[in-house]
């Protein structure tokens, strides 16, 4: 048994020993209950309890509480202890209320009165206890009650130093928790700032934290702190460690104060005043110099303290980003750390380098230090971050190669992120498609095998990678034979990820003939290779392979027999999987009844996927009918106008070219075009109904028997609905011009949605649940009548083609067909959201203007968020719901850099404008945003939750959205990711 520790309260020590000696949880519980009964009894009946006894019992209650048991009595006794004039009793009283009663409303006024008494007492120790208690609890009532007392203590000349320290931090806590209740008098500003100069370094240390918080709130008012911070810093770093006896920590003078000062300075741009600026530069220089001096102690504490200051100095240098010599020195210093034996230092160096990689001066210097061999996962993660951050056109090949090499041995936990990063870099910096294909196939080979499909977004991202590979091969005739070759080779590996089977299957089905002359990959070998994987694959992959086999029947008639055998085989022909069975039966029939010519038509090579047209071109085309040659002049939004100006020549001609190509392809390949359309149609159908495909797909056999019906390639490659899948992964596709300005009405309910020289169109939306009432105002800007005016709202892409699952139902009011000069016509639309949608509607407009027919088509900025209704909820509720939405597809998270300076108010307004709520007090970090909303559609109500976390230092945001229905979270994230 241990000695009786806890001197002073013997009963407490005995009780603690007893608890520790309990052999079982039950015994402990019995002992506790016995004690609780005893204490309750004492409190109730014994009127002669003295201060010591009360203190002892309250302390026991506290101990029991800290063991995890509820305490529902003894509050009064604890509060009584506050008015004791003995320190030890007061301390236990304060401890009890700040640990146990910090949220309860009981006796609040009594407690506040006791605190007030202590704050006004002459005993600094009591004042300190009271301040510490307020700082620990930090609630609104206290902010209101002591809004004068605490600042008075802080700036009064009579206050002793330890009280000032507590007062400063007490004020900081109240400022954080209830700044609205705290009246900060501007007369105090100067006095508070001057605490930086306080002789007592402890006071300065405490005060800097307060000042930094106030600076963040009102930088202008506290601007004066820059000078004082610089001079204080300068005095510390230039002095010897012996000058600061008490505050020297392992030969480093006041390291924590230095760190805090350097952080305050990161809230401001470099000082304007040249003398201050040069003094600051000297400080930073000195800090960098000291890092080169030999260590004064072998203890890690010494180097840590020194480097704490050094890293903060480097942060400031990066923040100022203007002194190239300092930047280069900082970078070299970090480079040295990368070689250091200390894991901590390597980790921190990599972290800082990520920041530095974005600074132009240091970019080259950073590149020298590419290194990834590390034992600690977190360090390697930083290294990958750094590689990613510093990748550019010149080093992309090396970096991607390096990341791939590393991926083979990378830790499980960081693979998914690496896969994504490699795919992005590969796409972004692809110089030729062969290289791109190499990289992507390698990626699938390496990561496909190891990364579990359960990892939520890995599945989505990797899935998109293989879709994308196929898309590239299909669209580039120059890499088709190369693609077929390397895909074939990749599949020869012993262990192969299923995604690799899919890619190879698809590619060989289309272009296997291109490598069939090579004796190593004659048709039969191709077929056998694929079929050797068949039985190991999931049903969806098998379906895809069956289609490949069918394509082989056309490409290689000589192996038709073998394929028919496979199709006829029990396990396919009578498969328990409906889809496999259907395909087997239909393909077999197809191969038996069709002539080679019919087969060749049915099984023709897939047409190219529509290339993504740049948003700019789409915009230009939209403008074209009206502007006729005067491309650059008109009043589009600023960003486009600027680009127009720059690229005028090239884009102009390009537009023409594109148009020409389009028309010619229309004329010649009309047939193919329709096939393509239908095929897309089919793909979209199957995407939404993956489980019940049999209903929605035309049965090929029935089409054939009905031979006049157009032949579609409807059933081929169901899973390859590239367009839809990949669009959330890659920069936005053509559907919506996604520049900042064009997502109009995203946060607002009314705006001008279109304008040119002739016409201005305004829209005003009002949504209730799933019904949006929209008022459109068409304004004729000219001096002539517009006649035969007919607007119509059509649905684009996926919306219109899925006739049987319409997303939106639009009910438009008839309007008169003439708009007189300089007048407006109003049209009412009622738009019902039947189902969540992705693409936004298109507005088509035709009219006559001085007898010339005009046609306009533009995107009508009605986004899905307009059907969100905000929901208020408390923290418990929020997190409960958040946790429940954890299935794959329900969450989408994006990290993106800030387009505008990060401003709390601005973010909050946007989020509210977006439609959902902005819940205050849910997230422990007050800089973050959380909220909730319900997306109303006719069929369903979809719950949506979000969390937005700004990071001011890196100027990045992290947005996480969770929604109860697949794809909704992704869509909402896409809408917001470029808006902050």
């Amino acid at each position, binding site marked *: 048994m*241990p000695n009786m*520790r*806890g001197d002073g309260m013997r009963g407490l*020590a005995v009780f603690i020993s007893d608890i520790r000696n309990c052999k079982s949880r039950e015994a402990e519980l019995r002992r506790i209950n016995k004690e609780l009964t005893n204490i309750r009894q004492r409190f109730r009946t014994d009127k002669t309890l003295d201060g010591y006894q009360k203190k002892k019992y309250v*302390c026991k209650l*506290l101990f029991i509480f*800290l063991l*995890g048991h509820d305490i529902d009595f003894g509050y009064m006794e604890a509060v009584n202890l506050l008015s004791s004039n*003995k*320190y030890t009793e007061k*301390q236990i009283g304060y*401890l009890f209320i700040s*640990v146990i009663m910090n*949220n309860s409303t009981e006796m609040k006024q009594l407690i506040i009165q006791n605190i007030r008494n202590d704050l006004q007492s002459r005993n600094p*120790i009591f004042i300190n206890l009271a301040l*510490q208690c307020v700082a*620990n609890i*930090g609630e609104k009532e206290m902010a209101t009650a002591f809004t004068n007392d605490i600042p008075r203590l802080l700036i009064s000349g009579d206050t002793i130093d*330890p009280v000032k*320290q*507590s007062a400063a*931090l*007490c004020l*900081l*806590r109240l400022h*954080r928790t209830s700044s609205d209740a705290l009246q900060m008098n501007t007369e105090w500003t100067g006095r508070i700032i001057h605490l930086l100069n306080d002789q007592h*370094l*402890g006071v300065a*240390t*405490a005060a800097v*934290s307060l000042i930094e918080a106030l600076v963040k709130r009102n930088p202008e008012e506290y601007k004066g702190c820059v000078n004082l911070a610089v001079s204080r810093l300068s005095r510390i770093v230039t002095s010897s460690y012996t000058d600061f006896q*008490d*505050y020297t*920590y392992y030969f480093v003078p006041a*390291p*924590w104060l230095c760190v*805090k000062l350097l952080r305050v300075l990161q809230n401001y741009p470099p000082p304007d005043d040249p003398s201050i600026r040069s003094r600051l530069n000297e400080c930073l220089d000195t800090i960098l110099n000291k890092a080169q001096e030999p260590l004064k102690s072998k203890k890690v*504490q010494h180097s*840590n*303290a020194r*480097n*704490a200051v050094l*890293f903060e100095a480097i942060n400031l240098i990066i923040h100022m980003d203007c002194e190239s010599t300092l930047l280069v020195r900082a970078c070299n210093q970090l480079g040295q750390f990368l070689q250091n034996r200390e894991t*901590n230092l390597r*980790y921190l160096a990599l972290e800082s380098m990520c920041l530095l990689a974005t600074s132009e001066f240091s970019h080259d210097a950073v590149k020298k230090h590419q290194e990834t061999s590390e*034992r*600690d*996962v*977190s*360090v390697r993660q930083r290294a990958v971050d750094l590689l990613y951050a510093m990748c550019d056109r010149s080093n992309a090949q090396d970096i991607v190669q390096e990341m791939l090499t590393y991926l083979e041995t990378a830790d499980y936990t960081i693979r998914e992120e690496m896969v994504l990063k490699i795919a992005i870099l590969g796409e972004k910096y692809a110089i030729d498609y062969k290289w791109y294909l190499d990289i992507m196939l390698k990626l699938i080979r390496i990561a496909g095998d190891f990364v579990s499909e359960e990892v939520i977004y890995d599945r989505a991202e990797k899935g998109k990678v293989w879709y994308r590979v196929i898309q590239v091969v299909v669209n580039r005739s120059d890499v088709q034979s190369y693609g077929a070759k390397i895909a074939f080779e990749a599949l020869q590996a012993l262990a192969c990820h299923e995604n690799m089977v899919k890619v190879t299957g698809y590619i060989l089905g289309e272009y296997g003939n291109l490598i069939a002359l090579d004796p190593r990959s004659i048709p039969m070998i191709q077929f056998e290779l694929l079929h050797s994987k068949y039985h190991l694959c999931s049903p969806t992959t098998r379906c895809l392979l069956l289609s490949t086999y069918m394509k082989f029947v056309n490409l290689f008639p000589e192996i038709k027999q073998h394929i028919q055998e496979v199709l006829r085989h029990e396990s396919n022909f009578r498969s328990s999987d409906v889809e496999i069975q259907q395909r087997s039966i239909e393909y077999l029939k197809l191969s038996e009844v069709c002539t080679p010519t019919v087969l060749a038509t049915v099984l023709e090579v897939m047409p190219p996927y529509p290339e993504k047209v740049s948003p700019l071109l789409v915009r230009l085309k939209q403008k074209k009918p009206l502007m006729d040659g005067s491309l650059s002049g008109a009043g589009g939004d600023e960003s486009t106008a600027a680009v127009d100006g720059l690229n005028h020549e090239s884009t102009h001609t390009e537009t023409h070219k594109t148009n020409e190509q389009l028309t010619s392809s229309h004329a010649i390949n009309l047939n193919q075009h329709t096939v393509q359309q239908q095929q897309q149609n089919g793909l979209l159908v199957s995407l939404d109904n993956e489980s019940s495909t049999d209903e929605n797909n035309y049965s090929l056999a029935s089409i054939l028997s009905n031979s006049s019906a157009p032949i579609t390639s409807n059933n081929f490659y169901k899973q390859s609905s590239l367009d839809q899948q990949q669009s959330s992964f890659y920069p936005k596709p053509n559907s919506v011009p996604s520049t900042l300005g064009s997502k109009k009405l995203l946060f607002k309910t009314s705006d001008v949605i279109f304008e040119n020289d002739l016409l201005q169109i305004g829209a005003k939306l009002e949504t209730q649940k799933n019904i949006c009432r929209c008022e459109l105002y068409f304004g004729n800007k000219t001096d002539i009548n517009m006649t035969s005016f007919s607007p119509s709202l059509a649905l684009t892409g996926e919306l219109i083609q899925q006739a049987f699952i319409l997303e939106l139902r639009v009910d438009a009011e008839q309007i008169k067909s003439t708009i007189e000069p300089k007048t407006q016509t109003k049209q009412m639309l009622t738009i019902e959201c039947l189902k969540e949608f992705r693409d936004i509607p298109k507005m088509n407009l035709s009219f006559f203007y001085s007898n010339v027919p005009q046609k306009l088509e533009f995107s009508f900025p009605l986004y899905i968020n307009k059907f969100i209704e905000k929901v208020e909820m408390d*923290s*418990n509720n929020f997190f409960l719901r958040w946790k429940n939405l954890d299935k794959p597809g329900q969450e989408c998270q994006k990290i993106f850099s800030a387009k505008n300076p990060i401003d709390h108010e601005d973010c909050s307004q946007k989020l509210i404008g977006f439609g959902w709520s902005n819940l205050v007090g849910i997230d*422990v*970090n007050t800089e973050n945003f959380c909220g909730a909303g319900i997306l109303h559609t006719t069929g369903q109500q979809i719950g949506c939750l979000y969390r937005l*976390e700004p*990071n*001011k*230092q*890196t100027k990045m945001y*992290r947005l996480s959205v969770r929604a109860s229905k697949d794809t909704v979270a992704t869509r909402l994230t896409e809408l917001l990711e470029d808006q902050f």
Partner: protein
Amino acid sequence: MIRFILIQNRAGKTRLAKWFVNFEDDEKQKLIEEVHAIVTVRDAKHTNFVEFRNFKIVYRRYAGLYFCICVDITDNNLAYLEAIHNFVEVLNEFFHNVCELDLVFNFYKVYSVVDEMFLAGEIRETSQIKVLKQLTTLTSLE
């Protein structure tokens, strides 16, 4: 800013939990368990920092005790790592070769030490001499 300070032993028993923001009681319990789970599995050769939810934990192990400080992502890692050590040295001095049992039996005094050195989630006092002097004064009081 410090969100909380935890001292736990290897078995996961909490020896100190100091919260600088208001959490619900069951949230506190969850945080304690999560921190224990991520910190104890780490190798001694690993960094003393680990990302945790949207914060990070700066921690150091002393014998069987883990001292963990949860701070914001952008906070200075080394400064808090040494703040832990500074705190441990003060405890060591104050309890004359501190051991785990001192923290158990004198839990209410440990809170006083914390309040002297950390307040409102910030570092209040860093001078060991000053802190110990103040603590000695307090101990001498009735």
